């Protein structure tokens, strides 16, 4: 059974990202990762994963999830100019609104654990995708705000 997952989307704060605006850049003109892309790659390399998994119908963080989150939290603490978006997912077989609530609950548990590990709350935002957009686990969505 494939449990639910959490994704991280990273965005540089507006000031430091203003020179890059990746959404406006042409794909082929940028062979070297810079700005947000580089931050995302570094985040993934240093923390090992952008996704943590939960048990069925559970929002309890297991040991592997805690280990991943600890590495992620360390990286985020060292990059105070980065904003992190925590996206929770529910079970695809669940009903729509319970899945939405379960995704939100999982995302909130991750956020609270991050704060416990010393990540400033203002760097973190939480959302839930419920059972919408399933099968997007590799997504690291960049938000330029």
């Amino acid at each position: 059974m494939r449990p639910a997952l959490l994704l991280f989307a990273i965005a540089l704060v507006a000031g430091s990202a203003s020179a890059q605006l990746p959404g406006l850049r042409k794909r082929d003109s940028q062979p070297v990762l810079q700005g947000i892309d580089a931050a995302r790659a570094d985040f993934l390399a240093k923390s090992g994963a952008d996704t943590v998994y939960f048990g069925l119908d559970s929002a309890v963080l297991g040991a592997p999830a805690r280990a991943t989150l600890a590495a992620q939290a360390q990286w985020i603490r060292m990059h105070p100019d980065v904003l992190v978006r925590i996206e929770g997912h529910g079970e695809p077989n669940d009903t729509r609104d319970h899945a939405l609530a379960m995704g939100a609950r999982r995302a909130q548990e991750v956020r609270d654990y991050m704060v416990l590990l010393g990540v400033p709350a203002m760097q973190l935002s939480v959302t839930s995708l419920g059972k919408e957009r399933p099968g997007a686990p590799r997504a690291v969505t960049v938000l330029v705000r």
Partner: protein
Amino acid sequence: MIFSSKLKWLLVTAAAAGSAAHAQAPGTAAATVVAVPPFSTPNDTRTSSGSTLSIAWDASKLIAQDLRTTSEIMPLPPAQKDFYSYPEVTAPSFPKWRAAGAKVLVMGFVQARSDKRVTFGCYVYDVDKGREVSRAGFVVDPSDWQRAAHKCSGQAYTAVTGAPGIFDTRIAYVAESGAGTAKVERIAFMDSDGTNHQYLTAGDTMVLTPRISPKATRIAYVSYAGGRPQVRLLDLASGAQRPLLTSDAISFAPRFSPDGGRIVFAMMNGANSDIYVASAQGGLPQRLTTAPAIDVDPSFSPDGTKVVFESDRSGSQQLYVMNADGSSQRRISFGAGRYAAPEWSPDGNWIAFTRRDAGARRIGIMKADGTEERLLTNGPTDEGASWAASSRELVFQRSDATGNSRLFRVSLDGSEPRNIVIPQNGSDPDWSGVTD
């Protein structure tokens, strides 16, 4: 928008006899035969939507078509060579219809008025007893003859079942196109027979669970426009939208109160999902549940005094009923499996739900006290039931093996669910009440 040119209904007469002609208990499968002979016109007159005789002919065809969509009625459609004079509308020959096997007879006329509108008369008779059951008249613009015909279909439906007619109602749903991350979702709105289909949102952001207000003037829904799911309100006449709440908390699963003045919904408070109620005009929400569990999917009773909702406070999802102020919360579902997404029927008797067990999601109903539970569909991917105004039928969504979601309607009488034809995939249907 659809209601900008709101119809002016003028009730000419309405002498509805108290009880139904053949009150049929839900669960009985025998269809009542209803004859719909061609409508008459006292004087064939040209109008902006064709002659009154052609409107009369089209109206009787539409009424037969409406009645055929129900499982309770078998219509005898109009025959082209049949002709009935205007006086026969109010004095039908009952032996003829008895011989044809009809139990109920629908007759009517379309008459041009000097103000360029038409009078639409509808008469429903009990054939066995040889007496009138109900009559109603509408003065409408000639282009609105379909709505008058739908109202007449409803009159016949009420005569047979004792329940409100569902033909002049709307369905809102989420229209889906594309797949995966490229999926586009829009709130769609249509008449219950699929006509007057329109999209209400642009498809630039994810949307969920549209819910029609009791007078079908507004729609509450969930939008990701702010990056996270939040309840928004859409005014159908102006197209204007706004968030229900000023806070940026995650809010979802909205439903209107029966008077349309309040909205009950779920909101995240940290890792806890609770039920809240707020004025539809805005303002601070009032919290109704506090359990450290996922409380979600609230739905008002039709008298507005109670709310049914779903909670996993016992360890699995079950249905609970509480007073509208949050007091006296008690569990009503005790069967095997998880119970979710309850909706209270318009007549107050039933609660529809989605039951999830052993990999299947199915639609079922139970009495408001939790008794007489039964399943209406076989699944395995059914979800999101919403009542018809008649309380005898439900609309729901069903996905196929490839994840394409379609809309279906199912009757309480145990007949097979029937597909509702829509232009694209659809989910989260909501069926309106009868509007005037």
